[in-house]
């Protein structure tokens, strides 16, 4: 059976949708952090560590939770393939500021631990007890061909039966998350055109 897109979730412009249907909207919050916190609370995502996370992890956690909680079952060997453009730039800047001479040169451990984008993979894996292949790539722009080739390769080589793919971009108050599941089941066509359309 061909690989398809079986579930997908979008977060952008103050809206969150699951498989194309709106599940949350809040246009009143002036910042990304306030918006994502309001979504976390309203959607009753119970994960206290959320508050300590950097913006990229918060976006990743909310998007993947909405997606994975909508599925009947989750394979513990589901692979993760995440990408974005800005890495974890917001927390990097915060860390840089915290170690500056003006601030006394003290690094904040709670900030430092989030200064790698692949921490987002770890947070999702811990929450859903995934013990699987995972990778985070940085691209100039959304790269659907790479995501298709990589996810199909993981499935075809028997590394996993399904892949959670995601474009998770956040830079200050600009954000766009698109996460989707690729697996050999009934679903939407897995193609560059389709992914570009769903982004």
């Amino acid at each position: 059976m061909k690989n398809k897109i079986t579930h997908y979730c979008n977060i952008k412009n103050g809206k969150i949708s699951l498989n194309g249907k709106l599940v949350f909207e809040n246009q009143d919050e002036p910042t990304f952090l306030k918006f994502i916190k309001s979504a976390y609370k309203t959607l009753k995502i119970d994960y206290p560590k959320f508050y300590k996370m950097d913006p990229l992890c918060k976006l990743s956690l909310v998007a993947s939770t909405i997606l994975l909680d909508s599925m009947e079952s989750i394979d513990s060997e589901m692979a993760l393939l995440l990408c974005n453009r800005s890495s974890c730039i917001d927390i990097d800047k915060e860390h840089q500021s915290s170690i500056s001479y003006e601030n006394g040169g003290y690094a904040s451990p709670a900030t430092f631990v989030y200064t790698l984008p692949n921490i987002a993979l770890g947070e999702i894996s811990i929450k859903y007890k995934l013990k699987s292949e995972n990778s985070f790539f940085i691209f100039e722009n959304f790269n659907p061909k790479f995501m298709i080739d990589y996810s199909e390769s993981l499935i075809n080589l028997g590394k996993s039966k399904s892949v959670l793919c995601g474009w998770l971009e956040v830079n200050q108050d600009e954000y766009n998350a698109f996460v989707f599941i690729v697996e050999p089941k009934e679903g939407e066509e897995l193609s560059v055109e389709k992914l570009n359309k769903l982004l």
Partner: protein
Amino acid sequence: MEELKKELKEKIIDALNLDDMSIGDIKDSDFLFGDGLGLDSIDALELIVILDKDYGIKLTDPKEGKKIFESIETMAQYISEHRTK
């Protein structure tokens, strides 16, 4: 001492991003780790930085930390006895 306890609660809420908490939610005798506030090992490092940066106290013996960071009460007591700024 009461002012120091209040100050510590504010610093902990701010440094550890305990967004949904206010100083009224933390009792002086609450355990900071485990069943109390549920802080973790990274938070412990953050508390060590607070001690150094804000009160001029450098912890050299890790075993000391367990007693010092038991609660706001024990932290305030230790800081008041050892602070250099």
